[in-house]
């Protein structure tokens, strides 16, 4: 251990990580919200200073779910890291799988076949729908409407059945592979997806009518947690939260990846920048996602789902057991990894929470030298204190619900 590292370690050991307020006036109460609290969406800790019911100051503290994924990636081969991406934004694992392999493919300079790209689009959008359903349900639950949460969960449950049929797992899907997918989407999955989205709009309308027509719900969110366009950009907000302040920015349109430029869809944008706008953006995005999935299902071509790059793409298992060539490739890929050229690459996708980017630096080895995850939840959470200060205690939960952070992703 060199002297510099020793110094850093000493500083970390001595550092008092507890948070104090400088001037706690006597009649102001300091309250801990989280990490173990019913409304903080995981293990977010908020230290709040209260003047009566009004929030005078708020300090968010993150890191309770830190598992060191960025460091872990440095010791994983490119394939081995795919299951870890499930655990980032655990509400939309399929989207994370896709985002990660897209970055690796960009580094390798290969591209998955058309069919694989269509399937990736479909599963990404399904993940977005499922994540937004939870976001809307949890927001409703945070402001007190317990029932809507179970209604949206019913729809999510049906989607999880489809994920199970497609990937073999409901939650930790790990479905994508570098240069393709784990396997093809079978006709029964396609018909299950079609059947689901035939009944979904009606059920979804049921859920949101419960909320949109409820004056208490709308008034709980209207004008709460407002942020200006400039501040939102300065705080690095992205995704639905950014589109709620009137910025028409969606990576699916501005830097099209997969097959988004072949699909016709709109980007919902609202201008108020409050909790209600964020809710409306999510709600309309779900509708757009349904549109995208329907078009993808129609246009999806036949063909392979693996790129024809034997030295970079894992061969099929049945071929490994029967053919010499594939056995050798499998051995090399598993033991030494795909060795991408020296260089660095950043690829971002529009995930359900915002811009999910993977920055990979390669030194030509089988594992990344550095992998940085640009997680949207972390960036969105930065503005928490700005949004809740001056509001009431009840607004905190509304703001958190409308920001829709996932701590697995924020803490990495």
């Amino acid at each position, binding site marked *: 251990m060199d002297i510099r590292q020793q110094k850093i370690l000493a500083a970390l050991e001595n550092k008092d990580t507890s948070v104090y307020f400088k001037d706690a006036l006597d009649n102001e109460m300091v*309250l801990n919200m989280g990490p173990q609290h019913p409304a903080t969406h995981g293990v977010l800790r908020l230290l709040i200073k209260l003047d009566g019911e009004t929030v005078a100051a708020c300090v968010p503290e993150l890191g309770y779910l830190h598992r060191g994924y960025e460091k872990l990636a440095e010791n994983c081969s490119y394939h081995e890291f795919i299951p870890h991406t499930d655990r980032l934004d655990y509400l939309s694992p399929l989207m994370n799988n896709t985002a990660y392999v897209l970055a690796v493919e960009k580094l390798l300079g290969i591209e998955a076949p058309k069919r694989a790209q269509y399937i990736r689009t479909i599963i990404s959008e399904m993940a977005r729908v499922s994540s937004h359903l939870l976001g809307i349900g949890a927001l409703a639950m945070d402001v007190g*409407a317990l029932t809507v949460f179970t209604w949206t969960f019913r729809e999510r449950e049906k989607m999880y059945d489809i994920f199970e049929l497609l990937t073999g797992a409901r939650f930790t899907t790990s479905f994508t592979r570098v240069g393709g997918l784990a396997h093809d989407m079978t006709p029964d999955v396609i018909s299950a997806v079609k059947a689901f989205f035939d009944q979904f709009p009606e059920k979804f309308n049921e859920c949101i009518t419960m909320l949109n027509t409820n004056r208490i719900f709308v008034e*709980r969110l209207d004008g709460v947690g407002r942020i200006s366009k400039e501040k939102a950009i300065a705080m690095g907000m992205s995704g639905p939260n950014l589109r709620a302040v009137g910025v028409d920015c969606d990576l699916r349109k501005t830097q099209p990846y997969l097959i988004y430029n072949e699909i016709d869809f709109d980007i919902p944008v609202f201008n108020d920048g409050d909790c209600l706008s964020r809710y409306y953006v999510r709600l309309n995005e779900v509708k757009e996602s349904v549109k995208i999935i329907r078009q993808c299902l129609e246009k999806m071509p036949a063909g392979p789902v693996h790129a024809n790059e034997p030295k970079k793409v894992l061969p099929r298992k049945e071929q490994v057991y029967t053919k010499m060539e594939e056995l050798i490739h499998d051995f090399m890929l598993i033991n030494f990894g795909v060795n991408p050229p020296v260089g660095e690459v950043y690829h971002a996708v529009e995930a359900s929470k915002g811009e999910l980017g993977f920055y990979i630096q390669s030194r030509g080895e089988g594992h990344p030298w550095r992998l940085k995850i640009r997680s949207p939840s972390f960036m969105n959470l930065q503005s928490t204190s700005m949004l809740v200060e001056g509001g*009431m*205690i009840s607004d*905190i939960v509304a703001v958190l619900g409308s920001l829709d952070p996932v701590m697995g992703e924020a803490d990495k």
Partner: protein
Amino acid sequence: MEISPVIEALIKIIVVIFFILLPCVAYLGVQLERKLSAWIQNRVGPNRVGPYGLLQPLADIPKLFFKEDIVPAAANKFVHSLGPLISLTIAFSTFAVMPFGDTLPIVVNGVVHNISLQIANVNIGVLYVLALSSLAVYGITLSGWSSNNKYSLLGGIRSSAQMISYELSLGLSIIGIVMLSNTLQLNDIVKAQSGYYLFGFLPNWNIFVQPIGFITFFVAMFAETNRLPFDLPEAEPELVAGYHTEYTGMKFGMFMLSEFLAMFAAAGMITTLYLGGWQAPYIEYLNLSPFVVSLVQVGAFFTKFALIVVFFMIVRWSMPRFRYDQLMNIGWKVMIPLSLLNIALTGLFILKPIHTWFN
């Protein structure tokens, strides 16, 4: 055979508590609430204990006795136990003046005994109920304070602020009824609601005579019972469990019990004051014997009562919760002016009844 009034009252109290209120809490409260919420939320609800899960409350409630009673080290032990005790006592006591029916004529040895179906027919019934609902604040506030927990404290303070704010509109709403019936005796208020109104077929219930008063009273009662959308004292997402965060076992059970009882008391008061209490309309056309009439009237009371309870539950499972400032604004800026307006209008219509307006 004459029995002393004390013994008679004791028998009535035992019957009301053990044969009406506790079964009501178990089935109309715990079981129905769980089943109803399950149906609303696409779930099945309890269905394992007994046929259709009917024995679930019998498993739920005794279970609480066998749980460890955890009193936080920082808490004030005496007040910590006093809180649920006050809540429960107050919640039960409200039913002392509730008229479940008129009188039940029982013939013993050829002598007709008219048993009043009310524990205490006192001449200040309305004030007694108001006084008790003010006292109910103590149970919650004391338990919130004694736990020495910030969520509890906030819940306790919130609830006292909320309950006393709605206490005002509660008191003001009832004045309209008192003006109409000129009595504070609850049984007499029910009797005053006999007969028919306007077109000769609408029962002369106060809900039709006092629509504004009914709305303000209904909303205030929701707030008094701390049920959604007014359940700020125990707002789960922000205050964890509010004033009963630090309570376990039967002490928590006592809060649950008193919450259900408060809801029943609210339903009973709404029935008594606005829905004609035990009055069953059109019953005089059926030529029934007085005993059967009396039973039908008790049935009518409990039907209305149960319907109100079901309404309370449906609202609870379909509404979000108010924010503190919205709640206070409704209480002070909407409810109080409305109930004052109700008093003025009621006086006007009593002095110059509606049918004399156009001649």
